């Protein structure tokens, strides 16, 4: 038994007894392995007695789950209506420049800081009232 298979088995066991445990399991698996790839899907299917298609259908449906790990730090920038009204679109070009190849920039639709946008998230840390300079420093400090 590979270590990956063993670890997945442990995660599945931690959620035993929970109703509809697949989404919490996928969150834990991704937190541990960085992604949910094809091999993981097959192992999960076996552990949960589901078909691989079932697992793949769920993994590919949700924006949070990724098929490939990306080792770069991620900065999520909110580009929903409220942040657009507060000028986030004008910050994107300079943010992309600050990110370069080192940081992965992703778009998120709403961090719930709509009265104080533009806003961004790095890990569990939120940043609001950003301008080009502050956003660039958030991106540069992302680890």
């Amino acid at each position: 038994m590979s270590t990956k298979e063993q670890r997945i088995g442990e995660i599945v066991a931690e959620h035993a007894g929970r109703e509809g445990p697949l989404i919490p399991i996928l969150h834990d698996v991704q937190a541990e392995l960085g992604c949910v790839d094809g091999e993981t899907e097959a192992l999960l299917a076996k552990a949960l007695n589901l078909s691989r298609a079932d697992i793949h259908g769920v993994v590919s449906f949700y924006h949070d789950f990724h098929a490939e790990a990306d080792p770069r730090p991620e900065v999520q920038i909110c580009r929903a209506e409220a942040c657009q009204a507060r000028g986030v679109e004008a910050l994107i070009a300079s943010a992309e420049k600050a990110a370069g190849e080192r940081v992965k920039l992703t778009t998120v639709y709403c961090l719930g800081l709509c009265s104080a946008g533009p806003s961004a998230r790095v890990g569990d840390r939120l940043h609001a009232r950003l301008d080009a300079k502050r956003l660039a420093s958030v991106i540069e400090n992302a680890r």
Partner: protein
Amino acid sequence: MIVRISDDALARALGADELAEAFAKKGLEVERTSSWGMHWLEPLVEVNGLGWGPVTADRVDEICGGKADDICIGPIAAHPFIAGQQRLTFARAGKTRPTSLDDYEATGGWAGLRRARQIGGAQIVDEVTASGLRGRGGAGFPAGIKWKTVANIPGPQKYIVCNADEGDSGTFADRMVMEGDPYALIEGMAIAGEAVGADQGYIYVRSEYPDAIRKLNEALALCKALIAPFRCEVRVGAGAYVCGEETSLLNSLEGKRGEVRAKPPLPAIEGLFGKPTVVNNVLTLAAVPHILAEGGSAQYGALGIERSKGTMPIQLAGNIKHGGLYETAFGVTLRELIHDIGGGTESGRPVKAVQVGGPLGTYLHPDQFDIKFDYEAYTAADALIGHGGIVVFDDTADMGHMARFAMEFCAAESCGKCTPCRIGAVRGVEIIDRIRAGGRAADAVESQPVMHNASKSGRLPEQEIALLTDLCETMKFGSLCALGGFTPFPVMSALRNWPEDFMPGHEGAVQRVLDRNET
């Protein structure tokens, strides 16, 4: 001297943690409370009832000495933004430590649940019905009637599901309840469980709210014995906007793709795992403890207008000077909210448009600002209250772009189950692009000599507008849920109110097409 600083996600995003640390270093006692909801003043520092905001780390010494007059707002509770509100759901905002059981108990916490346990299920349902409370998630369905349906179905297993997948841009009231007063939500769920005979609850929180998830888990661990035999668990979403739709949320809770289910059967009859299920929004459930407390139902029902009873936590967002949470009885006009309370735009430029009710809400024109906050009044104006979020745009906004964004958002977030939403949204983006590009030339197929009936002159933007109108009708009436069904609201309202942003110089042409389609 106790220094009170919010630990709400918004305050933290603006440096509240660092500020709290700076005050603690001065040897002062720092209490982390919920947020008052005056977001333009965050991080707000409160000492002996007086407020300073927004505070930066370099002002700490001055505030300790009672100075920094330029950012002092005087007694917080007397501030016009707070004094003008009728806070029931947010009665504790700014005043208590979010996960402190002592603070919750001392401010009337658990009184509703205690009374609910005495009066029993049938009377709980009656009182919720009498209060006139309607679902605050957007649909506005009477909560009491939903509870009654679930209560009347026999069965050993029923569920209370809290919809905390607050994905609408411009809304943050759910987040503020979960982070600022988590026990109010939990108590509301326990009361709902008591009312319908359910002993298991789930709170489905979106993954974009890490602070809310942490605080709910902390609160649930602390109050486990108090709500027993009712049990409750937090489930974290996975970034799908459509999971805010109740049937899609149930599928997601079951560990499936978040696809919408056809109704009927209603979730009240066949919900989570096919069992009778109450699905209510955070604000609906958090309003319940007040309603169930002695005399609460009558007090709640006396507020508001027409069939919109009680209070609504309204969220002022976007380009607004005084953004934040404003809970008030139904009936307030948009003009009051945006100009008198909100202070107009933050940029100081004229207001161009206001979107009420999230990404699927209508763009209202300043000419419509006399509209009263009321479910039926908004429906009559082809608009919706939704979750009570108001996003203000100044005159630099390009409404053609916003209409395109509405379609783009729908395409990105569609669950894919029904065709009008899945394909319509993609086609919608393309049509809006063509309108803004001035129509299109005949394509390769149309240009073939054999295509006798095809237009050889391509398509005029007016024809594209007729097509967009048609598509929006199809999406509105043919979609399974509100995502596809309501996306036409922002699109068509933008087109109707700001035709110059779609076809500069040809506003009249847009108007003619729209008039023709409506007759």
